[in-house]
């Protein structure tokens, strides 16, 4: 900032002030830019396409275990090992094995039906043992495996991470800076000037948008380079969706911070409002898993709308017209949260 004697419009000066405060806080920059990249990398490695993953089977140390182990070891796609009887449940719980076989005539399968991979393992084990016992296959089906860019879990995950990140940094950065200014009574001092209160709140959101490009660009660039995640829709549509999302969560951040007197209180409200969305809004797993009566509420949440729109644009190449419903939901959240904040904001 040079020796500028004439100030700009208060809205611009407030935005500049907020930006300067932000970039002079190295931790804040780390959390906004670096953290999402680290998270994407970690998750990308954890969920990378692993090719043909075998099923893991434990055979209990009992009479007949040698025959069972021999059959399973020969079967394709099965990794069998012998497990002590008292260790069996533990191995199952920790995911070391997905199903336990107790040899006998007939054998017994022990597994957790709530785990999809356990059910899968049970079927594979059963087929192998049945075949060994003499069952003949009536036919051998042909197989086509999918390994297409755009249909993998990582492709589905990255838009969700992006949405989660827009939510998290939007709410934390705005919420914290506002509450910090309140505890230090900067807000009270500003309230004693002719400053328009709307300008102040708007500046918080505008300053946020400046860094958004960097944050989103870093994450998407990284996803494209490291995992070849595609962006099939137009960049303009994607930018529009991201902007609307940032405004919605900026508004929510203001709303959550509009009355809080301490950083602790604000943190509590932040977590309280974000946690449900982490769970139901389809960041890590599809929100379709939740019961039908909950679906209207889930779809009205801003993070669901943002994630759905991001996935539609990035993966399905949706146009602006095809995501208008999500855009409208985000816009409504932005306008409503901003106007309520302005009304109930605590300046002292």
């Amino acid at each position, binding site marked *: 900032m040079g020796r*500028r004697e004439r*100030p700009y419009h*208060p809205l611009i000066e407030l935005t500049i002030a907020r930006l*300067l405060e932000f970039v002079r*806080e190295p931790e804040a920059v780390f959390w906004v830019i670096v953290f999402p990249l680290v998270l994407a990398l970690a998750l990308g490695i954890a969920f990378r396409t692993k090719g043909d993953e075998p099923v893991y089977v434990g055979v209990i140390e009992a009479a007949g275990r040698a025959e069972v182990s021999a059959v399973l070891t020969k079967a394709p796609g099965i990794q069998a090992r012998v497990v002590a009887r008292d260790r069996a449940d533990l191995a199952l719980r920790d995911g070391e094995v997905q199903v336990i076989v107790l040899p006998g005539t007939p054998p017994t399968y022990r597994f957790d039906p709530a785990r999809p991979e356990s059910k899968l393992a049970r079927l594979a084990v059963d087929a192998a043992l049945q075949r060994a016992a003499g069952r003949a296959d009536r036919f051998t089906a042909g197989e086509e495996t999918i390994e297409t860019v755009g249909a993998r879990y990582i492709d589905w995950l990255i838009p969700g991470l992006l949405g989660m990140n827009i939510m998290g940094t939007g709410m934390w950065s705005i919420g914290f800076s506002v509450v910090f200014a309140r505890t230090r009574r*900067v807000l009270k*001092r500003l309230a*004693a000037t*002719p400053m328009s209160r709307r300008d102040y709140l708007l500046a918080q959101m505008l300053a946020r948008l400046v860094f958004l490009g960097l944050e989103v660009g870093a994450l998407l660039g990284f996803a494209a380079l490291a995992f070849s995640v595609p962006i099939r829709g137009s960049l303009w549509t994607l930018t529009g969706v991201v902007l609307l999302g940032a405004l919605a969560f900026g508004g929510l951040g203001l709303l959550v911070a509009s009355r809080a007197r301490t950083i602790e209180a604000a943190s509590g409200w932040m977590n309280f409002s974000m946690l449900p969305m982490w769970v139901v809004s389809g960041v890590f797993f599809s929100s379709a898993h939740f019961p039908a009566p909950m679906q209207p509420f889930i779809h009205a949440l801003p993070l669901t709308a943002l994630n759905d729109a991001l996935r539609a644009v990035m993966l399905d190449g949706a146009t602006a017209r095809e995501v208008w419903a999500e855009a409208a939901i985000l816009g409504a959240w932005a306008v409503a949260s901003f106007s309520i904040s302005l009304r109930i904001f605590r300046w002292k």
Partner: protein
Amino acid sequence: MPLVGAPDTGRAAAVVCRGLQKRYGDVVAVAGLDLEVRAGECFGLLGPNGAGKTTTIEILEGLLKQDAGDVEVLGLRWGTDDRALHQRLGIQLQDTQLQEKLSVEEVVRLFRSFYRRGPSVGDVLRMVELESKRRSWVGKLSGGQKQRLAVACALVNEPDLLFLDEPTTGLDPQSRRQLWSLLDRFRADGGTIVLTTHYMDEAQTLCDRVAIMDQGRIIALGTPRELISSLGAEHAVEFAVDRGAEVSTSLLAQLPGVTDARVDAGTVRLRVTEPHVVIPALLLELERQRLQLSQLATHQATLEDVFVAHTGRHLRDG
């Protein structure tokens, strides 16, 4: 309770308030306050912590709403003329903290942007002698520099009326004098100041008129000179005797020229009209009582003595 110095109705009033009341739950912060500040004067609210000074000044600044009473600032009212009032007032809050990570000029420029008229950023910094700190972050400034910056933010609009809440609390003597001369220059340009302080010397140095507050009320009002002479004794004699021996204050009070005698933490305070008459008489009296002086001092009566005379307490006692 004598209220000296009735408002001079000949000059325009910068602040008028009548029957001002404010309570926080059961605590009465301001208990029916009448006040009139003339344009161009420096008016001080003097009192201990908790006297209601900050509550009063924040009501005048429009930051708090009174429970009862009438307030007029520059002929305008809070609630209807807020925009116009904000443009014309300069406000420094008690221990204002500004954005620590912004530089001095960035803060001043931000505040300047809120006002329609006023000096340039550089002029404001020259006024408060912070040009050399232009690029420094607020968080790195000394206490005195921070306070001058707070005043700079209050001066960016060339205010007609400047409110200062304890402007020099916690500052070293040099910083205080620096701030005082800054306020003198503002006065010289015709500005009006309302300030609160619990430093009697500050009130005596800066203020044309002083209202002494205690427990939400004004207990004395007038020029520092008037208030001190209202004691009827413009000097104070303080002494202590060896071994904390008992001194009879009633006997001392009968000495010629003594108007009041009190003992306070082993120190005897006499209010006297003529020290050169009282001191020889005092020495004779102490000799008669066979008491040895361990300390003796005289000073001109101050506003502190006025406060003590009205409340029996010291300003610092809180």
